């Protein structure tokens, strides 16, 4: 019985991975199918005829690569800004007690209940007054502002999980405030920082509505805006090129995750040892 348990576990894991990965597999499959096959009744994962033209079509259309570059810049800068602001703020939020903390937490939660559609017009007018409407800088600020509350909330949870005793022990050993933060808190917080960075990056990379309204010039369009143009009026959808574009759009996210994943693992180990 016990001998069967391990293969069963691997089987379950493989099934789970396949289940999670299936949408991506299907997307890749759709990206190399012909229009005729995509619009037929046949359900086959492997295309009958590999249609690489979809990728050429996707790249030819509407400046996909240029808009991917714009998305990357906005996502990376807004992620960096979010982490830079959320890190000290979340520490304060987690360690503070009393009314200020309650007010801070209340504000964070309140800010999450506004639908984007309600804030878009005032935001547009403010950015316009600042000369930042229709600019990547303006969009970066908006993404930062919009992601920050949740990032702050997320990160303060990680800070709370670090026992205050560790900091006190450090202080007892003669470490100053900054040393305690740098040598004890930040290493233990690394997994949280990485997870928050991932969340911020993906939020910005996928964000559609703000970019749709704020960006007016085609040279500033981000990837979701460009991909949206593959979907036409009257129900017309260029399915193959859209799938190809979506596959290309997923690559930077996957690369970013792959890079950060290693940090996430090492951070977890660092936390385990020190905890």
């Amino acid at each position: 019985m016990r001998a069967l348990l391990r293969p069963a576990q691997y089987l379950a894991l493989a099934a789970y991975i396949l289940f999670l990965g299936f949408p991506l597999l299907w997307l890749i499959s759709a990206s190399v199918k012909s229009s005729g096959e995509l619009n037929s009744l046949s359900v086959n994962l492997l295309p009958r005829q590999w249609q690489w033209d979809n990728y050429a079509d996707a790249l030819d259309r509407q400046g996909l690569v240029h808009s991917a570059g714009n998305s990357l810049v906005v996502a990376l800068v807004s992620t960096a800004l979010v982490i830079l602001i959320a890190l000290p703020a979340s520490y304060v939020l987690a360690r503070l007690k009393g009314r200020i903390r309650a007010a801070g937490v209340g504000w964070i939660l309140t800010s999450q209940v506004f639908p984007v559609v309600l804030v878009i017009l005032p935001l547009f007018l403010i950015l316009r007054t600042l000369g930042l409407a229709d600019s990547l800088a303006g969009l970066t600020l908006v993404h930062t502002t919009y992601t920050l509350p949740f990032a702050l909330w997320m990160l303060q949870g990680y800070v709370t999980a670090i026992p205050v005793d560790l900091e006190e022990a450090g202080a007892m050993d003669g470490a100053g405030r900054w040393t305690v933060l740098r040598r004890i808190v930040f290493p233990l917080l690394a997994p949280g920082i990485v997870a928050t960075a991932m969340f911020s990056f993906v939020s910005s990379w996928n964000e559609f509505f703000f970019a749709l309204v704020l960006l007016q010039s085609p040279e500033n369009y981000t990837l979701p805006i460009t991909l949206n143009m593959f979907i036409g009026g009257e129900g017309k959808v260029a399915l193959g090129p859209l799938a190809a574009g979506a596959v290309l759009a997923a690559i930077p996210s996957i690369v970013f995750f792959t890079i950060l994943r290693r940090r996430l693992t090492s951070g977890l180990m660092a936390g385990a040892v020190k905890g």
Partner: protein
Amino acid sequence: MKSRRVVVAALAAAASLLFTACSSGGDSGDSGGGGPVTLKFQSLSDQPAAIAATSKIVDDWNKAHPGIKVEVVPAGWDGVYDKLVTQFNAGSAPDIIHYEAAGVAPFAKDGYLADLTPYLSEQKKADIPKGVLDSVTVDGKVIAYPTELQSYVVFANKTLLAKAGVTIPSGDTMTWDQLRDIAKATTRDGAYGLGWGLSSPTAAMVALAPGFGGKYFDGTGTDAKINVGQGEMALPQLVDAMAHQDNSILPVTLTQSGAKALAPFYAGQTAMTIQGSFQAANIAKDAPAGFDWVVLPTLAGPAGPAQAANPQTLSVSKDSKHVKEATEFLEYFTSTENLAALNEADTLIPATTSARQALTTKLGAQNGWKQILSSGQYLTSAPYLFVDKYAQWKDTVATPAYQKFLAKQLDAAGLSKALTDGWNSINR
């Protein structure tokens, strides 16, 4: 989505009052020191061929008119309403706006669009069929140039029709009764006579209602009153009879989009399918080799072959500093040659009679084009275009009610009541 639009519209109205001081007029290029005028043209052209056709028209214009430069700003159809709401309220709308009649009519009502009546040439006016011109006329003012149209047509699998011994109807039009008979005759050997993607049925129901004398709405704006009578109920009841008495409609298609209903048509599971005319290009491209298809004559009800038109349009922002120049460009853009080229690229029906004739001369011999272009002559104004809360009624009342009716969860009286009560509740 639509409820979000309502929220945006309400917010926009309030915010426009608050932020008037912040707004500094349109972004339309100003000649300033006497240089060329620059017009921003927000285009929704999405197909590669249509994008190329639009670019060519604009390039040709720019070469011939060094004093009036047109810049194309590509945008997507999805979300364009929200984008336009913000642009209009922030005073940053492009000079020339590409959209559809149903979309721009509310903006015209709110005073965001320029009155193009004084600029529309008599020749152009005479070239646009009255029903189509009516669809872009709000409160007696022409607020847009119509460019491209679609109609609902019947695509048929000739092989299955021949197997069933059906003679393909000749002439310009065919009746719905003929369609029903053909559907019954071709429902055999495991195949169904008709596939009709009615997952979002309201658009088809209101567009085809004029053939049965149906109008749905009397009056305009918030004063509009709904009337769901015999003319409005005839088509839903016909679909119900075909689906549940004749069993000649493939049931699954009633829950699918139009595009999805093409797959069983290609597979020979349905002998006919009712689709937007633009699908001719997709069928020509995607149907399996040897698939023999034809477009049947335009469907006619007891009141004739009329269908409601919701043309794609080009309008001019009221904030534009160059309304006259923009309209000159629109006159050029909608010339016979240009509209024919654009509609050929988009496989749609030109909004002017001359361009439709030019396209018939050029493409009439190609499969389907003659019937599709012929159907364009029957397009007429749609009362729902000028009803303020139509979009809300469509999404929150009509679509679920039709879906329930087609699924036999509502009877005809229940559907009529749901459509009427729903409207009265929304339009209080």
